[in-house]
């Protein structure tokens, strides 16, 4: 049996992490292929519903990443996002949604190495956790099959 390859979705802001991931490319730093990047203008734009949507759509892990505090292109989008994530994480933890599978990070446009690192460690951690069966089952049992 081949090794489990986790599906990772990354929700990133356009100005820092997307550019940081561009830099990873420009620097030819290799990382795991498991990640798919979705570009947002700002972390403040990222709707928490999209996170559960990603799990429901089959993601095993999620990376949410944006500009470091005080570096937001729009001044405060990341601060609003940070607070939203705090509350969302609390709710997930209370409802048994596996937040070990959600990695929040700040990756700046200069942190190409960090981006590769975040992806690789997330892939490995999620690989250890295995497929997110419980949520996949919940979200598909009444729709597929």
């Amino acid at each position, binding site marked *: 049996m081949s090794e489990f390859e986790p599906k990772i979705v990354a929700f990133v802001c356009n100005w820092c992490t997307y550019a940081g991931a561009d830099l990873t490319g420009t620097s030819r730093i290799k990382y795991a292929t498991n990640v798919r990047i979705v570009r947002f203008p700002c972390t403040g734009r990222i709707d928490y519903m999209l996170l559960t949507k990603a799990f429901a759509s089959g993601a095993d892990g999620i990376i949410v990443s944006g500009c470091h505090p005080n570096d937001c292109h729009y001044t405060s989008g990341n601060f609003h996002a940070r*607070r939203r994530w705090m*509350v969302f994480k609390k*709710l997930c933890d209370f409802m048994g949604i596996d937040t070990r599978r959600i990695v929040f990070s700040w990756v700046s446009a200069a942190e190409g190495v960090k981006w590769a690192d975040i992806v690789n460690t997330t892939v490995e951690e999620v690989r250890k956790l295995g497929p997110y069966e419980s949520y996949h089952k919940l979200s598909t049992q009444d729709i597929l099959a």
Partner: protein
Amino acid sequence: MEDIKKLARELLADNKVQLVLGFENGTANRVRPAFFTTPEAVDKLIYNEFCIQNIALYLKKDICQHAASLAITANPNVVRSILQLAAENQIKEEKIKIIGITHEGKCVGLLDFKAAEEFSKTQPKGLKDEDKALIEKIQAMSLEEKFDYWVEAFSPCIKCYACRASCPMCYCGKCNVESNNPQWIPVAPHKYGNMEWHMMRAMHLAGRCINCGECNRSCPVDIPLNILSYMLSDFVLEEFESEAGLSAVFTPALSSYTMVDKENFIK
């Protein structure tokens, strides 16, 4: 109760309000919300320990929207709801007269918003011991147990939306679940649709819920929805020192931030 009635009668008789929103005796020994428009009708007004439905809900309904001015018999939950609605631009102070009633049922007369804020701060909050115990019980569970608990707890949900309909804070003209392009929340009351619906609702109420527990009381299948809000309210209070329903001028926690918000969970 007589002082409440007297006050209501006077307000109507002096044309200070067009409508008094309160309670009357209902069927099968129940009490129920009632709308009084004449001083004579007020004879039927009651207030007792059973009048716990959060009638602030009706402030967003047509009957109250169309009244030029109204009064409301307001226990602490109703007062908090009114303040929060005001903070969210849903009700104007000049339109409403609050007949304040303490949690012990004592009438404290008319409250303007400033007095209502003071009143609200002095009244005990709604968390019951059994709610607290349930929160603690769930928090002690393992991740899988929690997930199974909630999937199971939500499974009887029939999406009648009584929780939404009876919540004063759920005043959106178009609820998220009604947005179908894209369809954010599955409408069907299957396990997944129920999970996402209740999760979304809990997030929307985070930092805004005044913890009246009405969602739980109105639920025909008795889902302990209120503890989701209780738990998040506690969290928001602890983390952001923010509490809904205490002031008519208030920015809820999720519409604000501080530089020092925790980020120990961020890599």
